[in-house]
């Protein structure tokens, strides 16, 4: 398990966060420590490679077609302006369409180009508000596409179906958490906040992260089952490992020995079990879940303390035994030379 995490971590720093796009790309953390600096370089490489559109996207064709996308974008934006004026929209959709419709964006010339991945990310983000109604399914994605002014047929772009939606949401939550933790870190650095103890910090981080699921908690079991499908497991494991790694990093972990693995394994276990408890928790504001979380973190802290105690007790016992043996030897007179 730890070896797997290590391998995924290595793959991540080398390749960057490949296929699933985390929405806010401006979250490049300030590179202070050396290891974080390496991570920053990987992130910058990822951003650069995003504009070059590597073939890590689902179809190799999209890499070649997206080059023409940029050329066509300027030509077509003029066409779409004219087309948008004469478009016949049903009345219901008109009312539901927010200002971020696709037509509006294309009308603004001189704005940044939008890649296909960005458009897909926008569709998936828009689809999230329909999840309570339709579940984690293609119907939710179709409804999301319609709010952006796109036809429901554009859901054909998502070859992984509902898996795309769930993985996008998880990536989005992870990015939000990283932002929050970085912000807290900055506050501590500036001296505006007190640094928390490790156990409290982890507890708050896990709680913040799990609270992001509260709007979708009814349908979260469906999402968990989708994420456990064999073809989705590599991606979900990747997200989980980066999440746990981020939490420990901001908690101040700089270990370079076996502790690195044991700490992450422990936190992964805590996170997963708390998530499961949360899904079937019916107490107000998930109080039972948070008390469960408290107990688990306390267990881990106790275990660490107990391990140290066992070690020192063992040493003391050995010393005591050696002392008793020497005393017996003295008493029996074996030491005396006659």
């Amino acid at each position, binding site marked *: 398990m730890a070896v797997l995490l290590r391998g995924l971590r290595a793959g991540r720093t080398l390749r960057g966060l490949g296929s699933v796009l985390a929405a806010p790309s401006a979250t490049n953390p300030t590179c202070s420590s050396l290891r974080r600096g390496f991570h920053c370089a990987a992130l910058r490489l990822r951003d650069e490679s995003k504009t070059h559109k590597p073939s890590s996207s689902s179809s190799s064709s*999209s890499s070649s077609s997206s080059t023409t996308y940029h*050329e066509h974008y300027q030509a077509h934006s003029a066409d779409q302006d004219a087309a948008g004026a004469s478009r016949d929209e049903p009345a219901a959709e008109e009312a539901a369409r927010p200002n971020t419709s696709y037509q509006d964006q294309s009308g603004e010339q001189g704005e940044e*180009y939008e890649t296909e991945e960005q458009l897909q990310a926008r569709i998936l983000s828009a689809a999230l508000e329909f999840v309570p109604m339709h579940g984690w399914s*293609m*119907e939710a994605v179709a409804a999301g596409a319609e709010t952006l002014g796109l*036809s*429901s*047929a*554009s859901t*054909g772009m998502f070859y992984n179906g509902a898996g795309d939606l769930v993985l996008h949401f998880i990536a989005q939550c992870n990015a939000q958490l990283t932002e929050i933790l970085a912000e807290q870190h900055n506050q501590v650095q500036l001296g505006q906040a007190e640094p928390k103890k490790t156990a409290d910090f982890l507890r708050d981080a896990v709680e913040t992260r799990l609270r992001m699921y509260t709007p979708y908690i009814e349908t979260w079991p469906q999402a968990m089952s989708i994420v456990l499908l064999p073809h989705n497991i590599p991606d979900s494991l990747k997200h989980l490992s980066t999440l746990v790694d981020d939490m420990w990093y901001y908690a101040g972990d700089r270990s370079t020995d076996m502790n690195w693995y044991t700490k992450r394994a422990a936190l992964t276990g805590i996170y997963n079990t708390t998530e499961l408890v949360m899904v079937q928790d019916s107490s107000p504001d998930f109080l039972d879940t948070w008390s469960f979380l408290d107990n688990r973190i306390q267990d881990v802290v106790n275990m660490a303390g107990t391990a140290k105690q066992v070690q020192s007790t063992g040493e003391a016992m050995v010393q005591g035994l050696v002392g008793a043996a020497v005393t017996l030897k003295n008493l029996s007179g074996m030491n005396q030379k006659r």
Partner: protein
Amino acid sequence: MAASVKLLVRRVIRLSHRNIFAAAAGVSGRSGCCWAPSSCRCFSDAAGDRSTHFGFETVPEAEKAKRVYQVFENVAQKYDVMNDAMSLGVHRLWKDALLHVMHPQPGARLLDVAGGTGDIALRFLEYVRTQQDRQKRRAALSGQTPSWQDVSNNYSTEDEQESRESRAVVCDINKEMLKVGKEKADGLDIRAGLSWVVGDAEELPFDDDQFDIYTIAFGIRNVTHIDQALQEALRVLKPGGRFMCLEFSKVTNPVLARLYEAYSFQMIPVLGEVIAGDWKSYQYLVESIRKFPDQEEFKCMIEDAGFYCVQYYNLTGGVVALHSGFKL
């Protein structure tokens, strides 16, 4: 700035690759001239009289449409029977695969161009109706004890349901084929949500941004100007709409290719003569398959027309290719 320059360079490289590929393909193609209609047009434009291919023949462009019309007028009555005989019933699987990949959502509007006897449109309506039934069943199961709030909500959404009925429009240039299709639909008693329109794929009689899905199954190789048909497809699709094309293509496996060639040129015209009494039409059919660009070439044509996320799936080892693109 640097990014856009890089993209421009990549586009130039891609175009030059395609030109190299087209030239190489032209050299190794089955018949020397007219590998792609566009290159053929450039070649004969200088001569003043534009010509294109009709099977292995070369005919003036104006004449091709007329001759294709005649071919399909002749075969219309026996079209479905011949399809089953020639493909040994496999064409049904190909069309089912098209629907499966399409996975239409309820409320989608389909335009089936060169739809002729309406195979795709009928399958589309059935697929959407099954999906809607499944959704209703799921809703009924989950809402066994609805609250008063839910009941009143259901009453208000019922009106919206009416406007979310999916519709299919079958468009064909040939009245005979449409007649046969209409008779078939009437025989199956399917009238709601289906309409039959006469129209030319290069000049569709529809407004812009009308349809969610545009399909053309085994029809685009008969079109004189394929790029114009693709432009029209782009025009009538809504933003986010999907273009799907099912067409005979190049077989990748060499052993299968030999068998396929033998079968096409020896068996199919004979079947045509025996079952439909028309050798020449089916000779045209197999020849037009050979003249059509292969998977990659056609994918480039679709991208040039302005579609994104273009992908193709090979069915039956490349005998048939399903191309899909999005208007974004």
